[in-house]
């Protein structure tokens, strides 16, 4: 093995750098997208239906039941996807090990504590806080996975949440169904279509 000044032309160096960049991009894409699309499609659908119910269903008790069922389906679906990825893909063993899992567990615990003690009486405020809380989880996960797409998606939906809450409070739930759930579904669909 020799280490010295590069015995190659600038064109060869450029080609090597392009090869490196293309391979790294392919790897990052695989690493970031493996399974992520299914989570986004799943939770995008949960948001679309849940916030849609908030807007269109008059009975608060019924809205609560719909959200409970959707969240349980979302959690069950998440568990299934995690199991399926573990069984079938086996592509990467992450260096951060169980950090991601512990992050989501503590994220859930702290979120529940905040909501329990803050006790927001306004349903729209509660929806806004829960949505922001979810997007915080997406951004942190994106940072761990080094996924610019996931970080960008989290920040974009966060902007939608803030704009919708401040500018269109009367239509916040409809706004969130379309732009919150819709963004997650579009991102998941984009990943699936571009990856395959």
């Amino acid at each position, binding site marked *: 093995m020799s280490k010295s000044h590069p015995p*190659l032309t600038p064109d060869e160096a450029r080609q090597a*750098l392009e090869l490196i960049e293309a391979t790294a991009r392919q790897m990052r894409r695989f690493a970031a997208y493996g399974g992520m699309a299914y989570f986004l499609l799943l939770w995008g659908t949960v948001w679309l239906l849940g916030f849609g119910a908030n807007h269109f269903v008059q009975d608060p008790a019924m809205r609560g039941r719909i959200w409970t069922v959707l969240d349980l389906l979302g959690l069950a679906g998440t568990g299934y996807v995690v199991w399926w990825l573990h069984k079938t893909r086996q*592509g990467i063993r992450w260096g951060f090990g169980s950090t991601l899992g512990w992050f989501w567990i503590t994220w859930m615990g702290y979120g529940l504590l905040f909501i329990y003690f803050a006790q927001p009486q306004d349903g729209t405020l509660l929806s806004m806080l829960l949505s922001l809380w979810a997007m915080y989880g997406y951004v942190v996960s994106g940072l761990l996975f080094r996924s610019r797409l996931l970080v960008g998606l989290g920040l974009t939906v966060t902007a939608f949440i803030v704009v919708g809450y401040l500018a269109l409070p009367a239509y916040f739930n409809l706004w969130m169904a379309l732009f919150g759930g819709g963004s997650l579904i579009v991102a998941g669909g984009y990943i699936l279509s571009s990856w395959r």
Partner: protein
Amino acid sequence: MGEFNELIHQPVRLRIMAALHALPPGSQLDFGRLRDMLGITDGNLASHLRKLEEAGYILVEKTFVGRRPRTYIAITDVGRKAFEAHVEALRDLLAWEGEAGEQPPSP
């Protein structure tokens, strides 16, 4: 200043190192996944991995998932630094070209 590395510069090994370097530190990549990504045979990949492993640039771990044997590959700290130095050397070469309009002195 970077350091050109002939072992790493071979195209297949360059792609192996680029792929492993793109993962978060400490992460491991499945042998089959790497083979599919590179589009080469098992034997060819194993041969390149052996050279990189002998240089201390990667770690190869053989394990079982259920009853199925699996091989995982990770870049080492030494490999990460060598790869980054190599990339820097390539960039230096282009920078020299840009600044001087001519090639750097040969070794």
